[in-house]
């Protein structure tokens, strides 16, 4: 990353950093951009691991008992460990670090026109804790007895009792890793919130803040307000596993359902924690490439807040048939279905933003648009599940699996790639290759639908989750169902092959891509007024930007340019 050295040369006197050695610069740095990259690259590496896991277990599902190339035979315990850690990795070690910590760290100071986070050292500590949690998680896969296989939801007594799970150490390390990860994000979240609240550029009022910053802040708030009980729950689970407490043990006065409440009280807000940053990225990309003001900025913001508030009152829709009081389900089906109101509004407003635009189908735009189209499928299928009467049948079937991959994949992969391709010129000072980008786009989106559409039909027919071999169940072993499983697996392999195009494009463009100037997309937000890539401190200390208007002033009447940067004096 030679260009960083070059960037540092631009560095301002204010910080007075001379050349530092490699370790200090890339590992011990407190620069928000470096920490963002640390999160992002760790997340991407974990994405590859999570994707490899999905390849292994999908091969096993399509061709039960085969020896999977590059892996080997998949036994039931290995299958369980694979899906458990696939889910945990994709949510906690991919979506969270990349979308919140990665983009949050990179964008919040730049978009708010400030030189760094308000607590740079806390920020570094946050990443270091995260890294430790990553190492603990990976170690758990190799623990004696095998990795934890009790699903990412880790319901006790299975997760709390070694006698039942048969993975004494794997379970403990898994809980420990998750708990550490939570603490890391708590520290990060405080930084994000306080920076965006308190360190904005002069003149930047609350409604001048770009939506992606707002959404990352609201997401951090949701996270911080919902994760506490689960941190406590995780400590209790650790104690149950290792110290013999009885929190979840029904035989000694505990209650296994308690964990489910603690988990989902966090778990449901969590899905919006990752949704919101992705929606924010999409807002930035869509406005720039449609050359349009966002349709009703404030209303979008209100829907975000409404979604956040409502998300605390829907958690038990994961537990309709878990043995809770059946009358409670009625309350939660109401709140759950009603959450479609703010989210539908949000989607409608995004789509309305296209009206009157001049839409350029660049690579980031393609990804952002694909997000909208695909997320709608995930969203509306959530309504089937929220309808308690149907969830009796659909719960823990592949219908659920298909539902949440149609939300998570758009968020964690589509939204992320939209963001990466959009900010790449800023991050690395070079443009990505458009043609490779389009090949990667179509090579991912088309197979994606072929992977997950079949799962809806499998789920409707009763195919249940977390099963390593469906030939054990006569009604599920029928040929047409097996064929759908094969379609899904083959599509996955095709999609994974196309990811090499992305990786190549990414690395190649970083060093060889066309040089990017400060503002290659003619965008308004502040990060595009800094050098590409921005030096340590982002702007020279005497040229910190000042803000005069909102972030989406495209095609403002009476101007010859079709954009109007936030920092340009009237």
């Amino acid at each position, binding site marked *: 990353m030679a260009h960083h050295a070059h960037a540092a040369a631009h560095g301002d006197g204010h910080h007075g950093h001379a050349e530092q050695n490699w370790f200090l610069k890339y590992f011990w740095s407190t620069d928000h951009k470096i920490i963002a990259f640390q999160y992002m690259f760790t997340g991407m590496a974990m994405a590859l691991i999570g994707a490899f896991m999905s390849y292994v277990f999908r091969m096993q599902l399509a061709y039960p008992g085969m020896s999977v190339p590059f892996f080997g035979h998949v036994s039931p315990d290995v299958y369980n460990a694979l899906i458990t850690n696939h889910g945990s990795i994709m949510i906690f070690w991919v979506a969270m670090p990349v979308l919140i910590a990665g983009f949050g760290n990179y964008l919040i100071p730049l978009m708010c026109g400030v030189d*760094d986070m308000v607590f740079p050292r806390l920020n570094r500590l946050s990443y270091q804790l995260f890294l430790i949690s990553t190492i603990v998680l990976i170690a758990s896969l190799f623990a004696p007895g095998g990795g934890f296989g009790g699903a990412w939801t880790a319901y006790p007594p299975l997760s709390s009792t070694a006698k039942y799970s048969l993975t004494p150490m794997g379970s403990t390390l898994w809980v420990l890793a998750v708990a550490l990860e939570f603490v890391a994000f708590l520290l990060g979240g405080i930084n994000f919130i306080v920076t965006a609240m308190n360190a904005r550029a002069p003149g930047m009022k609350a409604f001048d803040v770009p939506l992606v910053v707002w959404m990352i802040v609201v997401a951090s708030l949701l996270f*911080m*307000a919902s994760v*506490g009980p689960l941190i406590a729950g995780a*400590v209790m689970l650790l*104690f149950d596993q290792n110290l013999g*407490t009885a*929190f979840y043990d029904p035989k000694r006065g505990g*209650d296994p359902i*308690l964990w489910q409440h603690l988990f989902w009280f966090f778990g449901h807000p969590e899905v919006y924690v990752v949704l919101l940053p992705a929606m924010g990225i999409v807002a930035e990309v869509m406005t720039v490439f449609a050359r349009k003001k966002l349709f009703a900025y404030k209303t979008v913001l209100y829907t975000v807040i409404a979604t956040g508030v409502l998300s605390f009152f829907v958690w038990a829709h994961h537990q309709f048939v878990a043995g809770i009081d059946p009358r409670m389900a009625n309350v939660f089906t109401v709140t759950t279905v009603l959450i479609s109101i703010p989210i539908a509004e949000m989607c409608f407003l995004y789509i309305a933003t296209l009206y009157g635009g001049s839409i350029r189908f660049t690579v980031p735009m393609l990804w952002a648009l694909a997000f909208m189209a695909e997320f709608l499928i995930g969203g509306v299928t959530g309504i089937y599940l929220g309808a308690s009467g149907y969830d009796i049948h659909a719960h823990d079937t592949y219908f659920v699996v298909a539902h949440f991959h149609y939300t998570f994949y758009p968020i964690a992969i589509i939204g992320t790639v939209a963001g990466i391709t959009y900010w790449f010129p800023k991050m690395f000072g070079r443009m990505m290759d458009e043609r490779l980008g389009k090949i990667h786009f179509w090579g991912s989106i088309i197979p994606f639908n072929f992977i997950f559409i079949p799962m809806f039909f499998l789920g409707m027919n009763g195919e249940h989750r977390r099963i390593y071999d469906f030939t054990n169940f006569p009604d599920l072993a029928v040929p047409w169902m097996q064929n759908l499983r094969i379609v899904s697996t083959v599509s996955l392999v095709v999609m994974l092959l196309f990811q090499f195009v992305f990786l190549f494009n990414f690395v190649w463009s970083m060093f060889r891509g066309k040089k990017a100037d400060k503002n290659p997309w003619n965008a308004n937000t502040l990060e595009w007024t800094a050098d590409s890539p921005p030096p340590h401190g982002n702007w020279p200390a005497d040229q910190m930007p000042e803000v005069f208007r909102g972030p989406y002033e495209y095609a403002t009447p009476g101007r010859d340019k079709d954009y109007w940067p936030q920092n340009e004096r009237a």
Partner: protein
Amino acid sequence: MSTKTIATQRASMNMPTGRLAVWWVLMSEVVIFGGVLVSYLLHRLSHAEWAAQAAHTNTWAGAFNTLVLLTSSLCAVLAHAAASKGNGPKAARLLWLTILGGFIFLVVKTFEWSHEIHLGFTLQSGGFWSYYYTAAGLHAFHVIAGMCIMAWVAASAAKNQDLHRVENIGIYWHFVDLVWIFLFPLLYIAK
């Protein structure tokens, strides 16, 4: 890394950054303790027999500790008052008194717990004791963390540096105190 960033010097919300951060930390702490306490309460309500277990706790020790913590909170308030008058050394002395309060609290706890463990009530003795030790332990952990940070703040306050931190650690200490005010009746008095 001694240079200050511009970020630290701004205050778009007209509130010092440190204080704002402390409030957010407390929000996340409130939900952590909230999770434990609500879980405990719900179980307590559906397990009448836990009252018999709770009868073995030492209410007097708990009451004494409550008093100790409240007094230490008062010292923290006085420290803040001294700091806002610019009297760093006085603030530092009061912070050390606060730390002393925390220390006494922990000593009393140690005696209590060793007595209870001696009687055979351990973490493993079922639902009530699991909550008793975990909730109070989590709280004690916060007391210890608060004492360490406070010692650090006091050291610099004695040199008249970073006096704004005196207030921030004070806010945190009041919170720790407040948690105990919830724990005490729930774990000791309700019998």
